[in-house]
């Protein structure tokens, strides 16, 4: 069978990325240009600045990717692009560029949902087996998704307020360890003890999450201790916070696996890089005989490799888009 090469383009937040994936499994080349240093000055991603940098960089990133792969556009079978969800101005740059490539080269255009991309990053590790539960954890999402088969998604639940990554960033800011907070808190959490008594977020029978109460509790705790002139033990607070978060996420993930009698779990999204979460999931999966996959760190954060991978499965089904494809800041996983 002929090999299929998909060019993926991703620009939904502050990374401009292009990637070429063969047959939905083999990474030929990926280029990711991160703007993180630029946005650090502002304490978070500034959408207009992100959009301005995407438009500066987009063609260079695609060219670098083709050069790295030693391929030309003529060898590409289709162009897959993130159309949502994400920052609308950022999405539009990748989308317009992908649509233009589709037009000038007369190649199919494949619309990829960003979260589908994150889930399919796991297919670059090993071929995903169905049915599965996907746990998607990032700065914008905390979702539990049931997949009966290839590219068939059923969202079981998700956060009702802050995404887990967003909560990490806010807690990091409150305890003064900078942006982005996830990696720093994850590291600090290995150094402390669970000494702070924090509320357990939304410990119910649903598949939903809620982290705003936990976040407020930490803000109040830090504030009150400051008022009393007491010093916060940052490592202990990081450990306490991370354990509470990881416990509730793993508890609900296990519930989903059991309720749907599913033996495959994939982890996805930027917070999938969190070692505390990875380790805890490894433990519960071993205990419950569940096949568990998580992507390497490079595929956890936003990247086009995952978009091209997901795009391959849409390509196989002939699910293409016309040139009227628009970017959507929020859109159901489908």
């Amino acid at each position, binding site marked *: 069978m002929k090999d299929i090469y998909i060019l993926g383009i991703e620009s939904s937040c502050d990374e401009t990325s292009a990637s070429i994936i063969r047959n939905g499994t083999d990474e030929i080349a990926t280029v990711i240009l991160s703007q993180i240093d630029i946005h650090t000055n502002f304490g978070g991603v500034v959408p207009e600045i992100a959009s301005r940098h995407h438009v500066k960089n987009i063609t260079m990133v695609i060219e670098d990717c083709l050069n790295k792969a030693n391929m030309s556009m003529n060898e590409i079978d289709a162009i897959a692009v993130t159309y949502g969800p994400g920052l609308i101005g950022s999405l539009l740059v990748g989308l317009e560029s992908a649509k*233009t490539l589709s037009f000038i080269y007369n190649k199919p255009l494949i619309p990829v949902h960003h979260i589908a991309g994150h889930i399919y990053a796991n297919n670059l590790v090993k071929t995903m087996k169905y049915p599965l539960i996907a746990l998607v954890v990032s700065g914008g999402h905390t979702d539990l998704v049931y997949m009966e088969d290839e590219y068939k998604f059923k969202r079981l639940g998700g956060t009702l307020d802050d995404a887990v990554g967003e909560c990490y960033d806010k807690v990091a800011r409150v305890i003064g360890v900078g942006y982005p907070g996830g990696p720093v808190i994850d590291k600090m959490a290995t150094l402390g003890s669970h000494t702070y008594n924090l509320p357990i977020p939304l410990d119910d029978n649903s598949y939903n999450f809620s982290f705003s109460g936990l976040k407020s509790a930490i803000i109040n705790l830090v504030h009150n201790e400051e008022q009393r002139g007491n010093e916060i033990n940052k490592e202990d607070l990081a450990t306490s916070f991370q354990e509470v978060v990881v416990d509730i996420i793993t508890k609900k993930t296990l519930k989903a696996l059991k309720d749907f009698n599913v033996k495959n779990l994939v982890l996805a999204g930027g917070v999938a890089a969190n070692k505390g979460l990875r380790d805890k999931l490894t433990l519960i999966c071993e205990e419950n005989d569940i096949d568990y996959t998580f992507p390497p760190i490079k595929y956890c954060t936003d990247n086009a490799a995952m978009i091209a991978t997901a795009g391959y499965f849409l390509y196989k089904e002939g699910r293409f888009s016309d040139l009227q494809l628009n970017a959507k800041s929020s859109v159901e996983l489908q």
Partner: protein
Amino acid sequence: MKILYLDTSSSFLYCAIIKNDECIGEIKLKLEKDLSALALDEISNLFLVTSTKPDDIDKILVVNGPGSFTGIRVGLTIAKTFAWGLNKKISTLSSLDAMAISCKEDYDYFIPVIDARRGYVYSGIYDKDNNIVLKNQYISLEVLKATLDNLPGSYVFVTNDDIDGISPITKYDPDFVAIVQKFKDNEEINPHGIDALYLKLTEAEEKLNA
């Protein structure tokens, strides 16, 4: 010599294919919020009805601002991807340049204005020979109007926006042939190096610099 002209810096899609100083097909379409979704589809239709293939284009002339930030990026991304992908020449021009050259009425000065909100506009002043008297800038409308008191002749504002307190006004209706004739020899830029003419920092940058 076929030139693709593209301007998406406002709520309008302006696009034309100019062949040897003759317009063989054009789009003047108010798209507003649908611009990002529909621009490329409309452009592809223009190629279809003019029996033009993308590779037939020799050069792209694209408006890089000022105007709607998102609109500017839509046009620039299309133009730079097109030029890079098919190895075509590309040049930019300002939206205000295009507005001034398109106005044929009998005045001494032409003042294209684009609403930048909160009492500000993007504007410049051009004489009837299209020489720039006041360079393109982000300027308070009051300051702009005060500047006009010193102009030694008649003037007209050129705009498609609803801006209070300016007159006389003439609507902007692009003359694609005139625009392309005048600006087709603008400096050719490597497509990767094409950048927007926002004329204004983002609010976050303004606050950081304050």
